[in-house]
């Protein structure tokens, strides 16, 4: 009987997750479309709602290519390693108090441990593909993972200290009335940035940066195997947005319908999750991709110190009161935002000064003088018209 109940639960949770994943795919194309003053999918089903199905079915029907020279076992197993952990996370993920796979004492710890497998699959894919672009993508995934998992875990430490538990439902229940995004704004921002890196969304989509690496780790994958990577990626988007809303946005708590951990709490949870997903796509539509060295520098030099500072502040807050905690966290948040803005500004200044160094002193662009003899002045000049 218990086995049957477990099986049923597994099926229900898998269906809920996969349906949400398809909705996320559709949302991305629609939202990105409207943000770029386009329409997004329109013709397939109601406002393109069936577009993910059409794409997936078409991919299933395509030829499954395993190129010569690949490391065959790794190549074949990599998409599966990407897909299974992304679903496995939901074993410990609560939707509401009573709808949870396994309410583990170390719930958030287990979620972290499982999601850390995903970059391994990317490394496998990159290594086994026998393709330089895939390999670079795989190495980038590994570098990114190392530099973002650490600040992320440290950012979580503050939340765990406040809730005095690692069980996710305890963390949510500890947020009655006061969500942790108010008590921990700095940790929330750090978590959000690290989350973007974790789920490989722009500006941190290094492993498959399309304009540099063809398709990154996906380059050699076709058909079903590519579809598995694709779906795993969107499951991860949903997973991390769900974790964000559980840890910082109060999970299933809400003022209206369902109230505190009633069955309708799931509606609250999904509303919050989709708000976070909207933020993720909004960032994607806004920011260009960073370089890999900028990305690791951001992770180690800024996010990690601030995450440690946030834990320190939380410790002070735990021994004094919430007011002190909020004030100190807000100061830390302001410093973090200022620092990140400053970095962007400095990068812009560097670019501008580089551009102006290539100009004449009066600001006009250097163009080769058509009258001069070839090889005299034109040998050193740059054509910078309109730059």
């Amino acid at each position, binding site marked *: 009987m218990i086995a049957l109940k477990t099986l049923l639960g597994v099926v229900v949770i898998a269906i809920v997750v996969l349906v949400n994943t398809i909705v996320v795919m559709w949302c991305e194309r629609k939202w990105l479309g409207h943000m770029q003053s386009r329409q997004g999918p329109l013709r397939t089903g109601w406002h393109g709602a069936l577009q993910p199905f*059409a794409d997936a079915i078409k991919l299933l*029907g395509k030829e499954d290519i395993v190129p010569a020279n690949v490391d065959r076992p790794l190549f074949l197993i990599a998409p599966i390693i990407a897909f299974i952990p992304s679903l496995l996370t939901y074993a410990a993920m609560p939707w509401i108090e009573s709808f949870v796979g396994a309410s583990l004492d170390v719930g958030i710890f287990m979620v972290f441990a499982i999601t850390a497998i995903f970059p391994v699959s990317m490394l496998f894919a990159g290594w086994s593909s026998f393709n330089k672009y895939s390999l670079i993508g795989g190495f980038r995934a590994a570098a990114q993972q190392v530099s973002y998992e650490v600040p992320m875990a440290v950012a979580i430490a503050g939340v765990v200290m406040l809730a005095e538990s690692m069980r996710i439902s305890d963390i949510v229940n500890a947020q009655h009335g006061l969500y942790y995004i108010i008590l921990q704004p700095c940790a929330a921002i750090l978590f959000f940035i690290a989350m973007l890196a974790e789920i490989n969304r722009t500006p941190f989509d290094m492993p498959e940066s399309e304009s540099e690496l063809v*398709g990154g780790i*996906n380059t*050699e994958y*076709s*058909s079903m195997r590519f579809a598995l990577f694709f779906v795993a990626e969107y499951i991860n988007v949903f997973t991390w947005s769900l974790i964000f809303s559980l840890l910082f946005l109060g999970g299933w708590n809400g003022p209206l319908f369902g109230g505190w951990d009633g069955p309708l709490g799931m509606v609250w949870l999904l509303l919050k999750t989709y708000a976070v997903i909207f933020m993720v796509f909004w960032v994607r539509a806004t920011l260009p991709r960073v370089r890999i060295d900028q990305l690791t520098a951001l992770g180690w030099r800024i996010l990690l110190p601030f995450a440690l500072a946030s834990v320190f502040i939380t410790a002070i807050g735990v021994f004094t009161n919430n007011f002190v905690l909020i004030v100190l966290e807000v100061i830390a948040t302001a410093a973090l935002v200022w620092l990140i803005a400053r970095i962007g500004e400095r990068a812009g200044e560097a670019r501008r000064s580089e551009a102006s160094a290539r100009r004449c002193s009066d600001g006009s662009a250097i163009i080769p003088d058509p009258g001069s003899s070839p090889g005299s002045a034109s040998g050193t000049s740059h054509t910078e018209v309109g730059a």
Partner: protein
Amino acid sequence: MGLSDSADTRLSQEGAATVAADDPAMAADDRSGVLVAPLQTIMNWARGHSMWPMTFGTACCAIEMMTVGSPRYDTDRFGIFFRNSPRQADCMIVAGTISLKMAPRMKLLYEQMAEPKYVIAMGACAISGGPFMHGYNVVNGVDQIMPVDIYIPGCPPRPEALINGLLTLMKRNAAGELSAAQRYRLETEGHL
């Protein structure tokens, strides 16, 4: 790559059977009523609503091809979505002049694509060599190298023409028609 008349009639006579035999795995199964036909219907629907062209532009026509993805023309509405990697692309839009040096690379990219694959020859250059027809190093039409599904005339064709070409291809897929490559194989080798 044109088909001879006899092949055309044979195709139209065999119509339904050929369509059901689109997928080699399904062709092996002759009881095409119970499971295969609905599967084929779903597959045709999917292929008619999702088309990922590969970004492959070699000359001025490529500018028009890029425009097609921009907000004004937005092919995402139809499920047309550019993919970089040939492994995941469904069709190759040959947009521009193909020089003799480019031709082997183009063929390599074509061979890296997964079946079923389609080729769209966009512009006079891809169809026949266009204004550079008499050049010493210009391929006089990509159909000398690969089977072409759709020809889009123009120098360059307008984005609307390219969208029309892509939609025509998708309509053919939805109707379960074979790709040019499949027809060629059927004609020359007797199987798909």
